[in-house]
């Protein structure tokens, strides 16, 4: 078990394109860190640099107190689980898991002890004699994890391990991975483009975009206090609504954001100090769909009534998504399924402005 650190790590490909633009990241022992971001954000490249599969252009990667830039993957004492599992098709499950140990000249007894134990943890003991092609997707995934576990490495690296599974199995394996981590407690770096996976698995989530780290934090922290517009939009599903607005004087000496001529929302008193200095400036208002819901007679402080013309209604069962257009900008609300909503009708809604975010349009910084 070990810490992993990235110091000003840059990855530049031949054409002078920077895939990773100097990131700093410290991962402590036993921690489960998820790198998340859209495709091409540099998350996989970062992981592969930690693995030693990609060269580091500049900066340093530390594993367990040593700079490993020049250490080949086999000497870094890491294990990796790949998106397409990368099981050796000609070897049985047992041999797949034992391969790394055999190459490292472990005694036979030790190998079978470790493989058996890993198989027990992952519940794949009956499959040990099968070939990978005789396994289902979920079973292959387990074997790939087993191959990592038997090595008992300093660090586990997962490269989008669940994206080849169907939705139901993905949820199941997610739980499985979390359980395994709780058992073996190995430092883990996990890459995914799925923010739900990131939120559910991680001790800390690293949101990456365009080769940079946007924000590092615990899942709840990212959800409630996104640092940038990118993080705000990326974390949470459906994505946060963004509306261009203007901060101006409100009623009773307060502040308000004016979204359109007819929609002006009062800023809760608690936020007055924070937003005061942006008065008379064009800003972006961010409000999650779950904070825009059906109208309630008993309003709490910070709740405001808005009325919008319905565009599309999507019942999901436990809730209903209603889509609107505000000045051409799409807006989504998450309402109680009992709410009656019909296209082209006006629907009264509650906006919970205690949960609002305000961003600078130029920098995307959340203020």
């Amino acid at each position, binding site marked *: 078990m070990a810490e992993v650190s990235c110091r000003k790590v840059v990855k530049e490909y031949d054409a002078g394109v920077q895939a990773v633009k100097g990131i700093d990241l410290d991962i402590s022992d036993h921690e489960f860190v998820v790198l998340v971001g859209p495709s091409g954000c540099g998350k996989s490249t970062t992981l592969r640099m930690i693995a030693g599969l990609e060269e580091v252009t500049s900066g340093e990667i530390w594993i367990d107190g040593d700079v490993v830039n020049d250490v080949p*993957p086999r000497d870094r004492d890491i294990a990796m689980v790949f998106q397409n599992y*990368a099981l050796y098709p000609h070897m049985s499950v047992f041999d797949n898991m034992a391969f790394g140990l055999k190459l490292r000249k472990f005694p036979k007894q030790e190998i079978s002890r470790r493989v058996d134990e890993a198989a027990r943890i992952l519940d794949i003991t009956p499959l040990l004699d099968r070939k990978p092609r005789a396994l289902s997707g979920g079973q292959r995934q387990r074997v790939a994890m087993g191959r990592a576990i038997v090595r008992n490495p300093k660090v586990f690296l997962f490269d989008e391990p669940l994206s080849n599974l169907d939705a139901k199995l993905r949820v199941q394996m997610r739980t499985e991975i979390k359980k395994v981590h709780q058992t073996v407690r190995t430092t883990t770096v996990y890459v995914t483009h799925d923010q739900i996976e990131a939120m559910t698995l991680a001790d800390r989530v690293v949101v990456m975009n365009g080769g940079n780290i946007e924000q590092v934090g615990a899942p709840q922290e990212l959800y409630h206090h996104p640092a940038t517009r990118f993080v705000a939009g990326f974390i949470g599903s459906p994505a946060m609504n963004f509306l261009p607005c203007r901060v101006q004087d409100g009623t009773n000496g307060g502040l308000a954001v004016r979204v359109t001529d007819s929609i002006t929302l009062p800023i809760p008193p608690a936020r007055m100090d924070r937003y005061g200095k942006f008065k008379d400036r064009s800003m972006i208002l961010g409000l999650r769909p779950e904070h825009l819901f059906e109208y309630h007679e008993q309003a709490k402080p910070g709740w405001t009534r808005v009325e919008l013309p319905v565009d599309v209604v999507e019942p999901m069962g436990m809730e209903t998504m209603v889509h609107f257009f505000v000045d051409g900008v799409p807006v989504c609300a998450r309402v109680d399924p009992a709410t009656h909503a019909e296209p082209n009708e006006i629907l009264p809604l509650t906006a919970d402005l205690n949960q609002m975010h305000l961003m600078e349009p130029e920098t995307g910084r959340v203020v």
Partner: protein
Amino acid sequence: MSTTVAERRIAVAAQRKHSLHRSRMWALWGSYIALSVFVVMFLVPPFYTLMTSLKSSAEISAQTGSPWLVRHPTLENFWYLITYPNFQRYYLNSIIVTILTVAVSMVISVLAAFSLSRMGFWGSQTLSTGVFLTYLVPPSLLFIPLFQIIGQLGLINNFWCLVLLYPTLAVPFCTWIMIGYFSSIPKELDEAALIDGAGYLQMLWKIFIPVAMPGIIAATIFAFTVSWGAFLYPLAYLYTSNQMVLTVGIISDLIRGDVFQWGKIMAACLLASLPPIVIYAFLMDYYVAGLTAGATKG
């Protein structure tokens, strides 16, 4: 009223379905008949080889009756050949040359294909293209300068020159199809092996070769066929019977002046064709895979 219309409709539909079915049947039987005609035409020479090989010299020289049938089948031609030292020599030479050619070709092409499909180095792209172009060089283009070169090496009339030259015919294509098979192995597999602690040669030996086994078999079959059936090089470079291989040995030994021992020649052809035919019979799918693999790039 309405029921009759409906009934009629059903009847028409049934008829149409029936005629569709019938036209399909015709197409199917037509195909079978046409294919049979082609199969018969294609198999005439091998059949005739077999018939002749079973005839005694007397029956052949009698020149009476249908040459397509054998009246007094005998194995005397085969027995003669099996006990004929020269023929044994040709067979042995063919086997030695072929085994060595296949081994040398496979080692060279597997190593090169592994390198060309996975480890880019300066000029590796050009080399891949060059390999393919070399495959298109027919033996008849260069056999005269090679005659000089072989002469300078002192290998004229020495079957070892074939072990040197046959790989030039087999290696380009074998490399080419192995590049294709190796390239189809997902990159993650090498990365998993690297992380598991394998070096490049371990990766090749323990992962690539077993996974690309169908390709290895196809390439081996190709190298075997080339080396077993080649005719021009041995004809040009070998002239004594102790050095000859089957393809030239049969012609030069069993045809003396204008005396053709057809029964023996045909029996020899049959015996000489046996190894390729047996390999083909057992490994047809690999054989076909190897044939068609040349049309795509690795």
